C-alpha cells in the first residue's frame, strides 16, 4: 500500500446560504485513516500513517474563528492542531479526487449571534473633486478607500449585520454628513477609511485614530490596529485621537489608515485585491475582540 502524502493545507470561510462555516482543507495524494478529537482550544486530527511532503509549521489563519493551524510530522503520522477562539461544532468529510481532500468544517454561529444585531456605518474617505492623497505612480485615496469600505461590507453582510455606506459612488461629502449618518442610524460603530499621505515617501505603516469623546474607543482602536497589523504585516504607526470624529459624540468611531499611499511599496500593496480583504478581516477581528471581551465581562 502506498503511503498517503500530505501536500497542502488551506483554510477559507465558506458562506453557505444558511450557515457560514470555516473550512480547513487538507490535501493529500490518497485518502488516509484519521483520528479527530476535541480539546479545550480546538481540535486535533491525526492522519495515521501519512507522511508530510508539505512543510510542517504553524499557519496563521485569524478568520474570526480559527486562529492558527499547527502541522507536525510524528512517528504515528501527521498531526493537525487547529486552534479556535470559541468552542464551535465541527465535522470532518472526505472529498475524493486528485488531490484527495479531507475537509474539517467549523460552524460560525457565534459570530452570527454577535454581529447580526449590530449596525455599522462605513465611510470611504474623500470622493468626487476631493481625491485625497495620490500615490507616487497613480492610485488615488478616494478610490482605494471605496474598495476598503466595500470589502468590509462584503464581510459583514453574510452575518446579517445592518451596514450603511456613507457614499456609494464618486462624490464629495462633508465630515458632518458622514458622521450624521451614523447618528441617524444609531450605529454601534462608525468606521472611516483613509490612507496616510506625506511628502516624506519613506513613512509607511498602519495607524488607527479614535473618537476621544466615546468611552472605551481607544481600546477599540488599539485592538483594530493590532489585528490589522497581524493580517497585513505592516509596521504600526500607533493609535491617536481624531478630533474629526468628535461630531459623533459618545458614538464609537475609528479612522483606519491601513497604509501610506505616498510610500512606493505600500502603493504597490494597494494594487493587490487580497489586501482589502485582509484589512476588513483585521477590523472584524478587532471588533470581535472588543465585543467578545465585553460579553465575557457580562
Amino acid at each position, binding site marked *: 500500500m502506498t*503511503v498517503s*502524502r500530505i*501536500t*497542502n*493545507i*488551506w483554510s477559507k470561510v465558506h458562506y453557505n446560504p444558511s450557515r457560514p462555516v470555516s473550512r480547513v482543507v487538507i*490535501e493529500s*495524494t490518497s485518502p488516509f485513516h484519521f483520528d479527530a478529537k476535541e480539546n479545550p482550544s480546538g481540535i486535533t486530527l491525526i492522519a495515521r500513517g501519512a*507522511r508530510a*511532503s*508539505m*512543510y510542517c*509549521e504553524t499557519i496563521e489563519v485569524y478568520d474570526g474563528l480559527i486562529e492558527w493551524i499547527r502541522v507536525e510530522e510524528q512517528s504515528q503520522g501527521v498531526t493537525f492542531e487547529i486552534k479556535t477562539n470559541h468552542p464551535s461544532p465541527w465535522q470532518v468529510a472526505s472529498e475524493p*479526487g*486528485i*488531490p484527495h481532500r479531507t475537509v474539517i468544517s467549523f460552524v460560525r454561529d457565534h459570530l452570527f449571534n454577535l454581529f447580526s444585531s449590530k449596525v455599522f456605518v462605513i465611510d470611504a474617505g474623500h470622493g468626487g473633486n476631493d481625491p485625497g492623497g495620490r500615490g*507616487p*505612480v*497613480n492610485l488615488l485615496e478616494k478610490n482605494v478607500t471605496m474598495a476598503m469600505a466595500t470589502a468590509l461590507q462584503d464581510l459583514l453582510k453574510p452575518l446579517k449585520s445592518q451596514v450603511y455606506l456613507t457614499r456609494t459612488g464618486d462624490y464629495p461629502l462633508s465630515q458632518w454628513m458622514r458622521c450624521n449618518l451614523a447618528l441617524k442610524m444609531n450605529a454601534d460603530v462608525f468606521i472611516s477609511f483613509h490612507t496616510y499621505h506625506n511628502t516624506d515617501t519613506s513613512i509607511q505603516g498602519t495607524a488607527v485614530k479614535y473618537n476621544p469623546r466615546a468611552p472605551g474607543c481607544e481600546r477599540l482602536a488599539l485592538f483594530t490596529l493590532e489585528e490589522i497589523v497581524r493580517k497585513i*504585516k505592516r509596521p504600526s504607526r500607533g493609535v491617536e485621537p481624531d478630533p474629526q470624529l468628535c461630531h459623533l459624540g459618545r458614538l464609537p468611531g475609528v479612522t483606519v489608515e491601513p497604509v501610506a499611499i505616498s510610500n*512606493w*511599496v505600500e*502603493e*504597490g*500593496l*494597494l*494594487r*493587490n485585491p*487580497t*489586501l482589502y480583504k485582509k484589512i476588513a478581516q483585521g477590523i472584524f477581528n478587532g471588533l470581535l475582540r472588543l465585543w467578545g471581551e465585553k460579553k465575557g465581562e457580562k
Partner: protein
Amino acid sequence: MCMPCYTIPIRTHVITEQDNIIELAKRYTEGVVEPGDIIAIAESVVAITQKRAILPEEVQPGLLARFLCRFPGKHGSLATPPAMELAIREAGTIRILLGCMAAALGRLIGRRGFFYLVAGRELAFIDDIAGTMWPYERHIILGPQKPGKIVAAIKEVTGADVVIADVNDIKCVDILAATSPASVKIAKESLVDNPFGNDDQQTPIVVIKVKKEAQDRAA
C-alpha cells in the same frame, strides 16, 4: 485538444536566497511525483533563490529611468523608477531605447508588445513591487536567469519533466523553460487557474498529473 489534468500544489517553507531550487524541487516532490508527471515551478521563487529579489530602496534610479517609467501602463511592471532602472541594467540603455522607439511605433499602428519584442522578453518577467508573497511583497523581482539549465538539472534529479512558469490571476500562463514540448502544452492548460496562488499560499511547486495516467495508476 485539451488534455485533462490534475494539479497538486505543494506547500513549502518561505523560500529565500539561501535555498537551492534544485534540491527543493527534489525534496518537496519526493513521493508525490511519478513517471509521466510534470513538475511546475513558479518563476518568481526561482528568481528569489538566484538573489534576484531586490528592495526598491536599494536601487538609485537615474534620470533616464525616472523619465521612461512615465510611459508604460500604470498597472504594468515598469511603472516605478526603481523597476525601470533595473530593466535598464538588465537590458542595457541602447536596447531599452530601441524598445521605447518600437513601442512608440506600435502605438501609432495600434499594436502592443513591441517594447518587449525589441528590449528583451526577459523584461516582461520583472515583477514590480507586487504586493504579494510575503516577505517579498515589497521587493522588485527580476526574471530568473538560465531557466533552461535549471529545468534540465531538476529533471536529472527527479526523472520528471519540468517547467518554469509565470502565471497570474487573469489566466495568463507563460512558460519560461521546459524539458519537453509536450510539457509546455500540458502546463499551459493545467496552470490556468494559478495553483501557485497569488498571495501567501506558499505553493510555488505544483505536480501536474495527466488525468488518464493518474486514473490508470489509481486503478
